């Protein structure tokens, strides 16, 4: 009995909180976690639409998103570990060697 729009708005809320967390937090790992939060919000959207249209393709998409997110988390965290080894810090602002 819940309108589908409610699920979608919930997803939007989660997504914007994820964006805000990305912008505000200073720890590399927390920033990474906010990316995961954003991905989850999108997953919720897909599932809601899959339910609305009665099609399975939305859920399949979520399946693949989960797989890719897992792979991405593995690699990303490995990179973070490598960064920590060289710079001894997890502060986002100090990883700025690419500035012009």
């Amino acid at each position, binding site marked *: 009995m819940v309108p589908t729009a409610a699920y979608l708005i919930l997803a939007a809320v989660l997504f914007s909180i994820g964006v805000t967390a990305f*912008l505000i937090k200073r720890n590399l790992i927390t920033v990474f976690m906010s990316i995961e939060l954003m991905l989850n919000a999108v997953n919720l959207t897909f599932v809601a639409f899959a339910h609305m249209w009665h099609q399975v393709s939305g859920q399949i998409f979520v399946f693949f998103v989960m797989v890719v997110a897992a792979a991405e988390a593995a690699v990303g965290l490995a990179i973070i570990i490598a960064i920590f080894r060289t710079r001894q810090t997890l502060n986002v602002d100090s990883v*700025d060697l690419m*500035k012009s």
Partner: protein
Amino acid sequence: MPSDYLWLIPLVPFAGFLINGTIGRRFPRVLVSAVALLCTAIPAALVAWLWITLKSAGAPETLHIVSQPWIQISGITINFAFTVDHLTLIMLGVVTGVGFLIHIYSVGYMAHEEGYWRFFAYLNLFMFFMLVLVLSESFLLMFVGWEGVGLASYLLIGFYFRKNSAANAGRKAFIVNRIGDFGFLLAMFLIVREFGSLDFTHVFDAITVNPGWHGGILTAIALLLVLGATGKSAQIPLYVWLPDAMEGPTPVSALIHAATMVTAGIYMVARCHTLFDRSPYALGVVAIIGAATAIFAASIGVVQHDIKRVLAYSTISQLGYMFLACGVGAYEAGIFHLMTHAFFKALLFLGAGSVIHALSGEQDMRKMGGLWRKIPITFWTMLMGVIAIAGIPPWAGFFSKDEILFRVYTSTNPLGKLLWAVGLITAGMTSFYMFRLLFKTFFGPEHEEHRNLHQEGALVHSSSNSHAVMVADREEDHDSHAHSVHESPLIMTLPLIVLAVLSFIGGWVGIPIAFGGSDEAKHFLEPVFAGGFENAGSHGLDYTLAGISIFAALLGAYVAYLFYYKKSRTAASLAVKFPALYGLVENKFYIDEIYSAVIVAPLLMFTRIFLGGLVDGGIVGGAGAAAGGVTKGLSSIVRRVQSGNIRSYAGWLALGAAAVMLVMVLGRAIWPH
């Protein structure tokens, strides 16, 4: 049928130019000469064939060839079209015949020069353009030839491009010619506007069918054409380039600046005689310009020291005669004089070249003397040329010049008698300064042995201006070539002899009836200049005027003899007595300096300050600098996005994503699909 091969006449020299110009650099000299001579001999042969065909009984009076259309815009069509009538035949004969002789001469004259292939390439290019000019059927095609000969002239005057004076002379020639071309162009614009076509037949027929059409726009067109002619044929006020053009090699002076290119203006006036006949005002202007130029140039030529300068001013003066002839409507006489002048002036230039060659580059007559025994062939041929130009019968110059003077005297021009007097005085002066040249060059005490200003590694072999042998450092020694005064080789003297013969007999085709001849020249040109002059009445006037001109010529020769053979001091003492006048004339009446101060200097200042500084530096440069500055400023602002900070990147990302979404939402609202 010769009309099928008409197109070969200009194109063969063009092929010669292409061959010599592109790969001639690697050819041995023999091959270059062979190509050049062949590509000049073939047109000469074709022209000879044309002559035979068109002189035979029953031949058409004109030949036409129309090839592909060239420009087709609504309202006007211009074709590549050639036409041959009797006037063209004479011009063709002069151009190809004299041109061929000069090519032969050049093989000998330029034998030691650097850039041999370049010379002959340019010479062939010139032949191509001149032939196009002469053969063309429309104003536009003639203008192509007109411009092209100007280009060839520039290239050849500046042949010794390493010399500043030569390069400047070439530039001056081209620029002054341009002023004349401006007049030609304006005339063409008016013709298109008035007649709707640029073809000669079309324009002249339109004028002919309208016998009452005089003056007005026709005068305007004619005067503009005259401006073009004064540029090309070195008349007042645009003659200043011709004396400087003597910087080029002597065969160039002979071919281009004596026999052919400078006659293009006369040819153009003669070709457009239908137009000019309808504008007595323009004709009067032509006559006055011609007479004034004739006497003016002769007066300068009297005191020149450089042998080629004398001949240059003499050319200007003789062109003035031709102009004068056209100005009183005596077109046949003008063309006749054009023909004979080509013979003896080319002869004189080539002879002067032979003298210069013999003296290893000396051109100043004050350093010459006593040469008649040492270079006899040159002497005798030049003597023929000098007598011809002085106008002493039965040499060629007399008949043509006398015809002109006669026609001027009997013309309907209100100034006729005055112009005749001017022409007569000029004839006397011509005889004077030509014999002066002869005596100073060939007679008198020998000058000291001509030292070779042979500097090691110098670019200029001698002090000459036109026979500058450009040697590279590693050239073999020229001592053997330079020292003794020697006669020129056969390849140079043979054309001299041929031209000398022509200078003698060349006038005999135009012997007027009064003297027992058949006046073939006039009758030959009658189909072209229909409605010619008929001398009714007694021949008494003929004899009187002829006698007066012969007397003037002999008087001039005698005075020269007195000054320069018997008492070589009188000329110098006269110069000392009238120093101001002498200085004025010797410096060419300071015309070059006046032009430079009045026209050139303000123009240069204007361009440098206004156009160069303000427009180019300020506006154009400023616009460029402003564009650069704006880009720099903007980019230094935008550059701050690249901070390297992840969070700022994320911030911009978020903003960008929001913008995209906004566009999508709004777009959905605007275009409800």
